């Protein structure tokens, strides 16, 4: 009753549409450049892992992945740590300017990164953080903290407030209540929020590239530069692309049941 006629066909066609371009990238990553340019083959006829080997052995390549992971993890930890108490406050209390503050946070989630690229460059150069993972991690806070607050607020609100009251009657102090009772109760929510912070920080390129030059260069910047330097090394480009998909694909499996709720900012 709650589905539509022909749903299997629609779903199958849509999934193929989603997977085909990704398959093509994977396919190319296992080919030699010669095979890519000269023939049109649906699967690699002379499969090679040379493209991947080059990435794993060349430091300028694999350090890009490490740099990216550094700022993504830093950003996720910062975002969750500061967003937790704020989410609790928004969920439980009414205070001066709460609604305006919430809207202001939301508006920052929507602010175009292009607007901030240049001022961020000035700001982080001035305080000496330019070209460090910290610069990118702090810059990404502008959209990840609001998102984390939103998602966590939804999860905190689903915990009945009687639990807070009982804990305080039992003599729990606020920090102890927070760590011992609230955090375990919304553990899945924290997981979802962390996943989303990870994801949005991982996929963002403009700020990450503007705020780094040499030491903290993220993988996305490595990809654009090295490729144009030596003509067009399609196989290498494809292999690097495939490797950026893997971290996302791994974490997605663990949160598959919460994905939709997270995208709805905990508000379904």
């Amino acid at each position, binding site marked *: 009753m709650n589905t539509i006629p022909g749903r299997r066909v629609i779903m199958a066609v*849509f999934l193929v549409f989603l*997977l085909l371009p990704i398959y093509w990238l994977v396919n190319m990553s296992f080919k030699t450049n010669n095979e890519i340019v000269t023939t049109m083959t649906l699967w690699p006829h002379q499969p090679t892992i040379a493209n991947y080997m080059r990435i794993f052995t060349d430091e300028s390549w694999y350090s890009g992945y490490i740099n990216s992971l550094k700022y993504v993890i830093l950003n996720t930890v910062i975002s969750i740590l500061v967003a937790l*108490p704020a989410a609790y406050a928004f969920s439980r209390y009414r205070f001066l300017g709460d609604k305006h503050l919430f809207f202001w946070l939301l508006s920052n989630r929507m602010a175009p990164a*292009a607007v901030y690229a240049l001022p961020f460059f000035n700001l982080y150069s001035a305080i000496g953080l330019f070209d460090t993972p910290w610069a990118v991690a702090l810059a990404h806070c502008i959209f990840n*903290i609001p998102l984390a607050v939103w998602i966590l607020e939804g999860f905190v609100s689903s915990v009945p407030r009687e639990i807070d009251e009982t804990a305080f009657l039992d003599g729990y102090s606020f920090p102890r209540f927070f760590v011992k009772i609230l955090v375990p109760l919304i553990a899945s929510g924290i997981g979802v929020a962390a996943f989303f912070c990870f994801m949005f920080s991982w996929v963002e390129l403009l700020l990450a590239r503007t705020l780094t030059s040499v030491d903290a260069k993220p993988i996305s910047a490595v990809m654009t530069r090295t490729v144009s330097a030596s003509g067009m090394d399609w196989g290498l480009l494809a292999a690097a692309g495939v490797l950026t*998909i893997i971290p996302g694909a791994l974490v997605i499996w663990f949160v598959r049941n919460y994905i939709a709720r997270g995208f*709805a900012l905990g508000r379904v």
Partner: protein
Amino acid sequence: MDKTINNKAWFLVLPVFLLVAFSAILPLMTVVNYSMQDTFGNNQFFWNGVGWFKELLDPSTDLGGRFLASLGRNLIFSLAILAIEVPLGIVVALSMPRDGWTVAFCLVVLALPLLIPWNVVGTIWQIFGRPDIGLLGYTLTSMGIDYNYVSNDLDAWATVIVMDVWHWTSLVALLCYAGLKSIPDAYYQAAQIDGASRWAVFTAIQLPKMHRVLLIAVLLRFMDSFMIYTEPFVVTGGGPGNSTTFISIELVKIALGQFDLGKAAALSLVYNLIILIVCWVFYTIMTNAGAERRPAEGGA
């Protein structure tokens, strides 16, 4: 409602406020400062008042012409992808399998494009659409269709739109799916007893229940497509000519390409203001929808 009034809650919000203010208000002040000045390099700045803003809103000047043209292109783009992604997302959500392992499989595949770095999304489609090495480009060309996104405006637009549909329809579908899942079975049983048609079930039960998530979906998709930068930049670089130059691309060109800080800053502010207004409208609609829902739930 039943929230306690407690201004000490500000202490809990303070870290968030400080961190976001550091990243949002300080840079915004820099932008406001720049927007009033002109520079001829060498870090020498001259007062220009509201000159840039006047120029920006006047289509006869170079800056105004570029701004309004890219704004128009961006609006067309946003409306086009909304018109495709929202209905398609609903259809896909309705097509989700009911249970079993296929649900998990579909969810994971749907979410996959969302987790690919945006420049890689661009790279994937750049390769996929090339007539010499890409499956899509090759197939279209061998079918006799003259497809080339590098030189033909229409092909470039089609590629950018299909890429966005590929990238983000899943988001709409996942949101709608979450909305559909929250409908109790009793509603469907009641509809069956009443002999409601498939279409009636959709318009009377499913659509109203998806109302809130659809709002979020439209808000997120509108905002994100309005700020789109990386994907079209990688695929078309804003070309051919300026035909796929959206506002963000234009802004980065002026700011980091020409280092015309005054113009870029004025453009940023107007851009931000448009986003803020749209955001506020959606936020008001969303909170009102939430306020209407709460008492109804309490009574049930």
